[in-house]
């Protein structure tokens, strides 16, 4: 029961944030030079056609009216119509959501798979050769631009040695997986670079904690100490550390999807910015923010569900 209240409390806290998100997203795109109707008509429009399109898209109404309209649309779950394809923005977003979620999911898995063992190793072998080596490798990894690392991986693992596809999303579950390996590796490596340090510190803290000494004093074998207490606590920390870096992972999809031609939300952001498709860009900024908020909420819930002692008062 306490849990339900906690959840409701969190959701309520989010309301002003959500409204704020829509305001920011809306204002963001009104600082524009250039006229969308002209751009959409391509190489063949004239004055009357543009005026007609402007009226059609509602771009001639005062700013406040446009915002209210926007809020109303968002509340009913619609984001208006895409200027380029004349379809509901919501539909465009839904089409692209799958690949992005898959990419984020696989990237997170790779990040976790890299982070937990390597952070553990670094913490346990602190100050020794392994710790330094891992640190060096990931300092370099963190400094690599995602688009460059992507191209490098393509060069090595798609062109030189054709193991993975150069780009695209493929067909069917296995096809998708095959196509997502390289892009997820790019995001996963970059994320791991950030999370390994954080988890390492957390584990070092835990290793020095009282109850570990108690466990050792009780005569429990070292391995058991490690596995039962340290690992469990480090997994908890992992959740919160990863949640903190969600923003980074989701932001990373923008460039990675563009480089690998994955038809997800990030790719859509780049192409709709290029096309000056305002409704879609607006919908996307809100969606990205919502994704971050949602994942953070999920992490909070997971955290509390795993260890109810941590329910915030």
């Amino acid at each position, binding site marked *: 029961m306490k849990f339900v209240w906690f959840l409701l409390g969190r959701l309520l806290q989010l309301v*002003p*944030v959500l409204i*704020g*998100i829509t305001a*920011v997203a809306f204002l*963001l*795109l009104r*600082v*524009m*030079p*250039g006229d969308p109707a002209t751009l959409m008509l391509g190489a063949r429009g004239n004055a009357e056609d543009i005026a007609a399109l402007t009226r059609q898209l509602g771009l001639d109404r005062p700013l406040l009216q446009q915002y209210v309209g926007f809020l109303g649309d968002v509340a009913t779950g619609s984001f208006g119509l895409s200027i380029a394809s004349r379809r509901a923005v919501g539909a465009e977003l839904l089409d692209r959501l799958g690949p992005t979620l898959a990419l984020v999911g696989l990237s997170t898995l790779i990040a976790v798979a890299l982070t937990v063992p390597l952070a553990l190793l670094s913490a346990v072998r602190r100050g020794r050769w392994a710790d330094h080596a891992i640190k060096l490798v990931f*300092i*370099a990894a*963190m*400094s*690599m*631009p*995602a*688009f*460059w*690392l992507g*191209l*490098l991986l*393509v*060069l090595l693992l798609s*062109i030189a040695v054709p193991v993975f596809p150069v780009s695209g999303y493929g067909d069917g579950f296995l096809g998708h997986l095959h196509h997502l390996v390289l892009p997820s590796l790019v995001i996963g490596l970059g994320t791991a670079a950030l999370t390994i340090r954080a988890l390492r510190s957390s584990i070092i803290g835990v290793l020095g904690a009282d109850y570990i000494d108690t466990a050792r004093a009780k005569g429990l074998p070292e391995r058991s100490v490690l596995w039962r207490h340290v690992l469990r606590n480090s997994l908890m920390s992992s959740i919160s550390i990863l949640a903190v870096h969600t*923003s*980074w992972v*989701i*932001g*990373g999809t*923008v*460039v990675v999807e*563009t480089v690998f031609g994955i038809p997800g939300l990030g790719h859509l*952001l*780049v192409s709709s*910015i*290029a096309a000056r498709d305002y409704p879609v*860009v607006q919908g*996307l*900024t809100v969606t*990205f*923010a*919502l994704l*971050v*908020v949602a994942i953070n909420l999920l992490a909070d819930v997971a955290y509390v569900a795993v260890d109810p002692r941590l329910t915030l008062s």
Partner: protein
Amino acid sequence: MSALGANWWKRGAGNRNLQVGLAMLAVLLLAGAIGPWLVRWDPIEIDFAVALQRPGAAHPFGTDELGRDVLARVLAATFVDLKVVAVCVVLPFFIGSLIGLASGYYGGWFDLALMRLVDILLAFPHYVLVIAIVGSLGPGIANLYLAFALVVWISFARIVRAEVLVARRAEYAQAARLLGYGHARVMLRHILPNVITPAIIFMMSDVVLTILAVTSLGFLGLGIQPPTPEWGLMIAEGRTFLQDAWWISVFPGLAIVYVGITFTVLGEGLDDFLRPKG
């Protein structure tokens, strides 16, 4: 010098990260400053006769599709990118620190409003906001500065505010107020020097994040304009030729990695130097 604390030279001498970081930075700045003079090729001149040549004696980094020497371009791009990154880091640093300072010090509704705003903006992935702003305003350096200033100040504000909340209760701050110094003076001359350290250290990692962001924008065509050499732009231009001329894209990337490593190491060294532990 007293601000650096006692024994600053000794601390510096023993700090390997700081030394390596500073050395790498020196190499970087030297490469950017005199590198273009040492390499005899013009980074912008077109010469189809030598297009797409492999790295070799005459062109250590090869040539691109228009016959331009890649090494010359990578070196020429150094200060181009560093200059932009510097502004995109320092501007938010100033804005964010001042706002964080005021917010933590005054508290009240100003602080509350600010924290709400920060919560909202935190929900957006930084990069999404930056690219949306730059994409809307159009490519161009001024718009880049504006976008980063609008988005990154939050990080600095949070860091400084957290420190200020602790510091304003400290004895020296109370003492200053009792002596009758005005708020502004207390904030700027007494508190600020003591809270700025974490922000300075964060600046180093921010440089790494910013160089990645700026070159990403260049890659997407939203950053610095051609034919000015810029690392991200060069990587994008080389993409079409990845199969036959990998060097066009690979070397600028290595330069970016070098900058990243430099400032990461420097950041760690600075951290140990400014905040010696135990």
